[in-house]
């Protein structure tokens, strides 16, 4: 009976010993995979956009300022720009607003706003209360442009290069850190931004 315990300890039976450990090893590997999946699951809410690296979808929508010229994708050519999809109903947009004002003050890129699923009255109110970081704001009350841009949650922001190509997309709030690390770094890596054109036009 003594022998029964030996196979596991006896030297020279390494192959046999490994066979016992194989299921355990597989189980451990499975645990690691599941654990990594669990820890990283919040990131799965952010779906990578297939539009990054592609030309920005074209649009032409009414200006938030009544009587203003329509806001169109033509404004995205020849210089870097930031397209920000927002709405006065969006709480995270309120958090993000101070960063947008800071970006406006730095003057690196003009910000084009797309006011999504909103009313002009509410949007105007919001900009009067919190300040207006946008060069121009277009109205997208029924989400047509937003769908064409693959938007599914506000705020979403797109960095557009002078060729009109989407270089980066941020889903959620832009913080000063994210602005520096994800947006400014890309502009600088491409040789920096030319001075944006004067407001209005």
């Amino acid at each position: 009976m003594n022998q029964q315990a030996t196979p596991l300890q006896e030297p020279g039976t390494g192959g046999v010993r490994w066979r016992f450990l194989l299921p355990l090893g597989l189980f451990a590997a499975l645990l690691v995979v599941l654990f990594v999946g669990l820890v990283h699951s919040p990131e799965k809410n952010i779906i990578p956009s297939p539009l990054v690296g592609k030309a920005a979808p074209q649009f032409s929508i009414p200006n938030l300022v009544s009587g203003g010229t329509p806001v169109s994708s033509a404004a995205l050519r020849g210089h870097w720009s930031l397209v920000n999809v927002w709405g006065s109903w969006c709480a995270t947009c309120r958090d993000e607003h101070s960063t947008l004002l800071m970006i406006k003050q730095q003057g690196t890129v003009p910000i084009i706003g797309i006011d999504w699923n909103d009313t002009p009255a509410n949007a105007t109110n919001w900009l009067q209360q919190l300040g207006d970081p946008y060069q121009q704001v277009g109205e997208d009350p029924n989400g047509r442009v937003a769908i064409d841009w693959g938007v599914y949650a506000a705020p979403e922001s797109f960095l557009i290069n002078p060729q009109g190509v989407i270089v980066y997309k941020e889903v959620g709030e832009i913080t000063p850190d994210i602005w520096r690390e994800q947006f400014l770094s890309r502009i600088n890596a491409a040789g920096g931004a030319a001075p944006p054109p004067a407001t209005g036009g």
Partner: protein
Amino acid sequence: MHSPRRSHLRALAGAALLIGLVWVGRALAVDATPPLPTPQLQQRYLALTHELRCMQCQDESLADSQVDLAGQMRSEVHDLLLRGMTDQQVKDYLVSRYGEFILFKPPMNWRNAWLWGAPILLMLVGFLAGWRIIVGRRRLVDDDPDEPLDDTVDEHWQS
């Protein structure tokens, strides 16, 4: 006094009314998009909205979701079908905007090969392992049918 027969009828009518109301309510609750002009188009619309994911709620289809975005995407599908797009063109358009994630059923292509192939592969491995174990056991028993099982296994380990 009601006759038993009448009260039966009444209960039946009540139940029918209730079921009818629930059914109508369900139909109205989610999809407010106007129906397409032909039954064929409407059929395709229904099939498509069930195959596409609501990007906001993610575990619901466009057809089932009540959020604004799903409603707007339903009318987008509606309009694209009216414009004469094929089902594949509608899907391709939305995939080009939102990625393959919007399809509940991932397409069979080389990039997704592991996804479709892994279950078959794992099943084969399982069968193979099971077969080897069964054959191995039978051979042991065949070799020395008189020997008690414990010792047989023990000897096998030591060899």
